[in-house]
């Protein structure tokens, strides 16, 4: 295994600026959407007093979850001493920061009072998992920034491993915190489950790695850099394990719910009668997000090809969005069980009359805001790799594979 050299993203200027311009335009459109929503009020969105968190939260939570997962690649190199992953660490940490920034931007811009962000920074309620998350997020930025520094600066080598381990522990806490936003909600049947926290952690492994693979393959491809088959194979196998774990947690979550009669109505809603939510669960979460990617990854032919890996990663991300949608929106549209043993036959506030779910359809500005968040992630990442040496000059087997032997 040779020493890895790093260099800035070297694509020609017009192309680089062209990519930036496209992303900038998407962000500008999202900005207009945000201004429109904030200026008018949330009545221009599909969100209501029943479905209080909508599509922006789906995007925000997906990106935040993926952020901590994207750091995994670096953690495997540092915390678990897998040398083959170490050259991948810098981009992994950068992408983690970018994903978190994009997710938080979406989350913050959807607040009813985004101008009062300072209050969120100065008034804390320490019983709120949300308030802890503010620390977990800002801490993540600081720790991962230091981590990148220690990866890049050889004088700080002594700090590299401890910081990497610390960052790994922190990212586990962070995703546990994100999952607990829902897991700690006793009010709603779809939430109030401790398993949501570890499930979010495993989801983050899968989504973060899928996002990392796509970004890595794209920036290497357009820059003419080489990624060896060995490394890709290892990562896609890892993705397979993570996706299988997501499927396993999904199974346990629903089996646990199915066992208790109290949750049968909720399970019937998600698994059978929920219309779009049932479709998104089986079609998005299970099929697109788990089964098809698993099929591709472990298919002897397709799994070995770059196209197969790109397809699997893309599907994991699309399925992941569907997963978060089912959790966030599906959990809210299902009527709250306020009166066990009774059916609400009339209500002045949409309490789920005759068990009917709440209505929600995302509006265009919400979609634009979410997509804008994704554009922010890519913009930050591309600027980062252009400015500093994040990318290994090559990841060919000869360089990356410790067991490489010329044959």
């Amino acid at each position, binding site marked *: 295994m040779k020493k890895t050299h790093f260099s800035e993203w070297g694509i020609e200027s017009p192309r680089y600026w062209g990519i930036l311009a496209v992303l900038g335009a998407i962000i500008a459109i999202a900005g207009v959407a945000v201004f429109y929503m*904030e200026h*008018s*009020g*949330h*009545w221009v969105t*599909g*969100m*209501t*007093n*029943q479905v*209080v*968190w909508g599509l922006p939260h789906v995007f925000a939570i997906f990106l935040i979850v993926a952020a901590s997962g994207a750091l995994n690649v670096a953690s495997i190199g540092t915390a678990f001493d897998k040398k083959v992953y170490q050259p991948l660490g810098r981009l992994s940490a950068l992408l983690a920061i970018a994903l978190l920034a994009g997710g938080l931007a979406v989350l913050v811009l959807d*607040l*009813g*009072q*985004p101008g*009062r*962000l300072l*209050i*969120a920074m100065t*008034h*804390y*309620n320490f*019983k*709120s*998992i*949300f*308030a802890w998350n*503010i620390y977990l997020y800002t801490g993540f930025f600081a720790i991962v920034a230091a981590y990148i520094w220690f990866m890049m600066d050889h004088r700080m080598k002594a700090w590299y491993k401890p910081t990497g381990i610390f960052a790994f522990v922190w990212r586990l806490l962070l995703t546990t915190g994100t999952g607990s*936003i829902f897991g*700690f*909600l*006793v*009010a*709603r049947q779809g939430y109030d489950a401790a398993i949501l926290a570890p499930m979010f952690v495993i989801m983050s492994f899968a989504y973060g790695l899928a996002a990392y693979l796509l970004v890595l393959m794209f920036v290497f491809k357009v820059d003419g850099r080489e990624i060896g088959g060995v490394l890709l194979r290892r990562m896609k196998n890892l993705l397979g394990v993570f996706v299988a774990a997501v499927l396993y947690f999904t199974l346990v979550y629903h089996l646990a719910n199915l066992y208790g009669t109290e949750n049968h109505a909720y399970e019937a809603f998600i698994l059978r009668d929920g219309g779009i939510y049932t479709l998104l669960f089986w079609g998005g979460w299970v099929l697109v997000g788990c089964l098809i990617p698993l099929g591709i990854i472990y298919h002897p032919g397709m799994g070995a090809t770059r196209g197969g890996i790109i397809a699997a990663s893309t599907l994991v991300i699309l399925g992941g969005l569907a997963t978060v949608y089912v959790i966030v929106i599906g959990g*809210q549209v299902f009527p*709250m069980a*306020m*009166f066990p*043993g*009774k*059916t*609400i*036959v*009339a*209500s*002045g*506030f*949409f*309490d789920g009359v005759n068990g009917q779910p*709440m*209505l929600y359809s995302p509006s265009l500005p919400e979609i634009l805001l979410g997509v804008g968040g994704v554009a922010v992630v890519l913009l930050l990442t591309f600027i980062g790799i252009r400015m500093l040496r994040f990318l290994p000059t090559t990841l060919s087997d000869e360089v990356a594979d410790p067991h490489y032997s010329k044959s």
Partner: protein
Amino acid sequence: MSKVKHQGRREFLKTSAAAAAVTVAPGVMLHTLSAEAAPRTEAVTDKVRWGMLIDANKCADGCNDCVSACDKENGLDLVDMPEGADQGLWERQRPRWIRQVKLKDNLSGKITNLPMMCQHCEMPPCVDVCPTGASFRRADGIVMVDRHTCIGCRYCMMACPYKARSFIHAEVAEKLTHAPRGKGCVESCNLCVHRLDNGDTTTACQDACKHQAIVFGDLSDPESAVSQALKNYPSVQIRADLKLNTGVRYSNI
């Protein structure tokens, strides 16, 4: 000095509660009392805990009096639909503090009517989850939102087991002096806190209920009408399994 004052207040509450218990038309009776009441000068304490008992048997099918009284009292009727909004969507976005709910028992088919609002929990989930502490429980048991520090994240709405809260989805042109309201904050029933702070002892919904289904008062005072009623009749908390110790109780559900 403060002790004397406190006692005076306590006495006042007792007499007014007793008056409420005997009067036939509580609204009329109690408004005469409020004429002599003055705004509060000392901080509320936990010696009082406001709460109510709602008798679902007395709550009449099709009656909406408490809802319209609440809307009027708290300026909710001044919240206009924004121009260009979709009527159906807006109905789900407009704020409501109290609502009528009609239930049918799955086994017997028995119909029950009751008003639902913030249950003023002793352990409110909305207060637990609020990141800034804007959602808070006042010493006298009223759960409310300090909209000066509310950032509009709606996590409290996710956490409330009673769906009691509303987010203000649009600019509000006209508001009442005692009921400020603005786009982007969350709010909910505050037991007509402006009335209580000005020495009044009833809520608008209670006054409006001609069936006297609502008894409101101090749960900490064993002599109050509401405490007596709770002592003498069986009652339940909605979602008692959550052990939130609600300030609003129901009988005959």
